[in-house]
C-alpha cells in the first residue's frame, strides 16, 4: 500500500482518538489522576473541568496504591525478579536456539 495512505490512515485514527481523549479529559474532571478521575466520574457523573494536559512538574511517580500502601520495596523487588527471569530466559533461549527450536 502507498505510504501516504498508510500514514494518512494512521493520522486519521490518531485524530479521532485525540478528539475523544480531549472530550473525555474535560468531561471527567480535567487534570486528575486516573484512579481519582474514575472514582469521581462513576460516583458523580460527568463534570466539566480543565487543567493542563501535561504536568511535567509532577514527574513520573509510582502508582498511588503502591506508593501510599508502602509497597515500593516489594514493587522494586518484583521488577528486579522479573527482569532477572526475563534475561535468564533470553540467555537460555539464545543458547538453545541452534537446537532446532524445540517446543517447550
Amino acid at each position, binding site marked *: 500500500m502507498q505510504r501516504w495512505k498508510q*500514514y494518512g490512515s494512521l493520522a486519521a485514527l490518531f485524530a479521532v*482518538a485525540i478528539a475523544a481523549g480531549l472530550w473525555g479529559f474535560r468531561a471527567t474532571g480535567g487534570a486528575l489522576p486516573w484512579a481519582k478521575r*474514575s472514582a469521581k466520574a*462513576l460516583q458523580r457523573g460527568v463534570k466539566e473541568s480543565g487543567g493542563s494536559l501535561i504536568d511535567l512538574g509532577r514527574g513520573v511517580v509510582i502508582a498511588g496504591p*503502591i506508593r501510599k500502601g508502602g509497597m515500593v520495596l516489594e514493587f522494586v523487588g518484583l521488577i528486579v525478579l*522479573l527482569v532477572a527471569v526475563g534475561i535468564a530466559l*533470553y540467555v537460555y533461549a539464545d543458547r538453545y536456539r541452534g537446537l532446532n527450536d524445540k517446543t517447550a
Partner: protein
Amino acid sequence: MAHIHLGEGSFPLWALVLWTLVGVGLIGVVTYRVRKGGIKTHQIALAGIGAAASFAIFQLNLPVWGGIHMNLTGLVGILAGPALGALIALVVNIFSAALGHGAVGLLGANTLVNATEAVVAYYIFKTLMRMDWDIFPASASAATIGLSAGAVLMGAIIVISGVNGSALPRADLTIAVAGLVGLNLGVAVIEGILTGFVVQFLASVRPDLVGLGDRQQGEEDLSGVTA
C-alpha cells in the same frame, strides 16, 4: 491503558462471578491452545521479558492526560502473540493486584480487558503487514486500535455491572463511562506511537521478532512471532 481501578466491593457479586468465569474461560482456552500447539523456547523468553516490561510500566503514573499509566499490552501482543499475550495480561494483573493496584475481585474483568488489547493488536498488526504496510504505521495503528478495543470493553463491563454505592442512573453512568473510555482513546495514541517506535527498532535489529518471515510466507502463527 484501560484498567478498572475500582476498589473491592465496587461491583455486585453476580458481576464479579460473571467476569471471573469469563476470564477463567478465556485463560482456559488460551492454555489449551498453548498446550496443544506448543511454545518455542524463544517465545517463552519473549513472554518473560514482555511481562517484566508491561508490569513495570503498569505501575508508573505519567504526568499526561491528568495522570495515567501505560500497559504495553499492544506491544506484548504484537511480539508474544495472542495466546502468550493473554497469559501475560493475567500475570501482570495478578502481580498488580497483589500490590494493591487493582482489586483482586476484578482480576477476571481486568484480565479480559488487557487480554483483549493484546489479542486485537496482534491480529490488526498481522492484517496490516499482510497488506504490505510499513512497520511503524502498522504497529502504531495496531496498538492504538487494540488499546481502544480494551477501553471500550472496560466501559461495557462497568456499565453492564453497575457500580455499588453510585447513585447515578444507568444513563448517566453510561455517559460518565463514555468519558473515561474517551480519555483512554487519547492515551492509546501515546502508547501507539511508543509501540510503533519500539517495534520499528526491533525490526531493524531483529526483523524475525516482528514476523517479517510471516509476511513473506503468508503464514500465521497463533502462538506468536519467532525470535
